[in-house]
């Protein structure tokens, strides 16, 4: 790493490790293995098939500064009052630069059998489980996360229990120095027939080129029904890397929504393993990019059991020189008969300089399956605009309506009413503020 800033020396991995060891020796094997994997692989490059369109060189060139300790200046409630979902009636865990902040968090009465806490406090006895779902992944950022994660959320819902309120995980970065990196680890364990809504939002209070690297492991039991909304609205220079590893049980329902609006570069790795029959899994995403932004969603949906449905819907609105990347791999294992897998990725280019790279990939080893995929990249549809105009709407209203509709298609799949309504209003406001319709 060439650019070590002498006034603010970047953290040495060894130094970071000494500190992390004090926080929990039981995790050290995982951390060491992670560091070893990362030392071996280094950052991915454009030569890696999984990273063909997303260049992480700007991240590799940043000083290495994992936020092993909380950063100096704390933040107060007043800074969080107006953030998205800040007023939502929810239990809220707030993490600042990867560290749990008890003062800003509010956890109400959840039923017995429900644990909502931060990972470091609740991990006792679970250390060996950490990494059990993400372990097989060769993503260098997962390796880095194994090595350096400081904290994250732990949500456990016992069998037959429901979250009485949604749980809101609010991750903010305050970092003022380039390269400051919050490595966050979340664990979500939903027991058999349990239910709940989880909202995960990532925001920046500072403007520096910070890194957020979050790994979430989700174990969803038989008959469980979970909705997970991930909202990323970080600042213009931020880098955001996320990796979700989910294993679903028999007849489980899981809806994961990814709303990516911010960051200079964001990457969401989604790894879904449909391990038992009768699962319904929905991955639903919206990215709205402008300037030099890039949003990348990279998913592998593995059908390992028969009679499962999986649907992926991703819409992107790309303006200026921004880019959208979508890679959707559906893997149907032998024996996963009666699989019903659908995938669509639609990209609306609002500028000649915007680009979308979309790559569907079907890999099917069973014969009695239904798999469809479709991808579009294009401008706003002239026929649709004409249709609306023949009903008396002027062109700018027509364009606005289509754009809202394009985003709305995704937003309206969110089942939780208050979350959906807040996001809908936010997306509309954002489109109005940013795009010229005339």
């Amino acid at each position, binding site marked *: 790493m060439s650019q070590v800033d002498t006034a603010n020396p970047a953290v040495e991995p060894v130094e970071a490790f000494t500190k992390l060891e004090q926080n929990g020796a039981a995790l050290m094997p995982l951390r060491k293995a992670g560091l070893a994997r990362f030392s071996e692989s280094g950052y991915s490059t454009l030569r890696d098939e999984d990273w063909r369109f997303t260049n992480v060189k700007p991240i590799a060139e940043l000083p290495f500064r994992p936020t092993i300790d909380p950063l100096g200046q704390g933040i107060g409630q007043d800074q969080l009052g107006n953030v998205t979902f800040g007023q939502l009636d929810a239990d809220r865990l707030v993490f600042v630069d990867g560290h749990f902040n008890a003062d800003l968090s509010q956890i109400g009465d959840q039923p017995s059998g429900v644990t909502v806490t931060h990972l470091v406090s609740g991990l006792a006895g679970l250390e060996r489980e950490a990494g059990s779902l993400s372990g097989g992944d060769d993503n260098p950022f997962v390796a880095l996360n194994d090595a350096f994660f400081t904290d994250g959320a732990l949500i456990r819902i016992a069998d037959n229990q429901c979250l009485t309120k949604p749980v809101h995980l609010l991750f903010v970065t305050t970092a003022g120095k380039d390269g400051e990196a919050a490595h966050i680890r979340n664990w979500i364990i939903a027991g058999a027939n349990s239910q709940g809504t989880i909202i995960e939002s990532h925001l920046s209070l500072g403007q520096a080129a910070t890194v957020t690297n979050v790994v979430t492991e989700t174990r969803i039991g038989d008959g469980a029904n979970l909705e997970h909304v991930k909202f990323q609205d970080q600042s213009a220079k931020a880098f955001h890397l996320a990796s979700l590893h989910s294993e679903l049980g028999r007849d489980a329902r899981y809806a994961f929504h990814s709303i990516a609006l911010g960051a200079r570069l964001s990457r969401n790795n989604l790894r879904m393993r449909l391990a038992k029959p009768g699962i319904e899994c929905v991955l639903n995403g919206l990215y709205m990019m402008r300037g030099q932004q890039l949003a990348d969603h990279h998913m592998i949906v593995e059908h390992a059991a028969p009679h499962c449905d999986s649907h992926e819907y991703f819409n992107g609105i790309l303006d200026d020189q921004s880019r959208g990347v979508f890679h959707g791999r559906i893997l149907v294992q032998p024996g996963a008969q009666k699989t019903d897998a659908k995938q669509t990725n639609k990209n609306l280019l609002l500028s000649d300089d915007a680009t979308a790279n979309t790559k569907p990939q079907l890999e099917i080893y069973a014969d009695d399956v239904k798999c469809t995929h479709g991808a579009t990249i294009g401008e706003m549809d002239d026929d649709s605009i*004409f249709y609306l*105009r*023949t*009903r*008396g*709407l002027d062109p700018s*209203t027509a364009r606005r*309506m289509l754009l809202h509709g394009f985003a709305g298609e995704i937003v309206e799949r969110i089942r939780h009413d208050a979350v959906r309504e807040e996001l809908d209003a936010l997306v509309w406001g954002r489109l109005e503020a940013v795009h010229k319709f005339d």
Partner: protein
Amino acid sequence: MLQIKNLQAGIEDKPILKGIDLSVNAGEVHAIMGPNGSGKSTLASVLAGRDGFDVTGGKALYNGNDLLDLAPEERAREGVFLAFQYPVEIPGVNSTYFLRSAVNAVRTHRGEEELDAMNFLKAVKVKMKELGLGEDFLKRPVNAGFSGGEKKRNEILQMTMLDPRLAILDETDSGLDIDALRIVADGVNRLRRDDNAQVVITHYQRLLDYIVPDFVHVLNDGCIIKSGDKSLALELEEKGYDWLIKEAA
């Protein structure tokens, strides 16, 4: 109301309409028939203002003013309505929101007050019932995933709500079952007044049993080759177009 004089139009140097003359007065219903590809939808598109068609000659006057000079939305606000042969699916755009915006755009232009959400819903629900559309319809995105028949009924619902002076219906009957045909025809007939007019493009005499035209025109290769009263449609049903095309040649 509408005077079309020697209208010629084409697309990318390909002439499609080759001199159309047609006068439609308030209170009249005109049927336009003709073989596939004869230019019926093109005529409708040119009158509604679709991009991509070049008008190379002639004119179309609407209430004495040059219709072709107006933007599509201006034509709509002035009371021209086109029911599409192939209504466009608009995923993500809620039907209620769309239709209320359209109704209010037209009302504002007419100097009427905008309808608030409640009054709009009241009005639209009555019309939906008449057209046999279920209430869930309002919650769905415009035409997205609608059956062929539902799309056509939606066109008629929009027409009813917008209350046009000149309605052009492009094959609104195709794809409808017998019951839906009657419902749609009733919807059109309910709108008929002394101060408005309908131009009905169809292939089938059947529709004209319900919507009885004052005039029937036959379009072939971009020209109206024959005009008559409703008996012409019966004659076409029996004999096809060949004899007419030969007669015209």
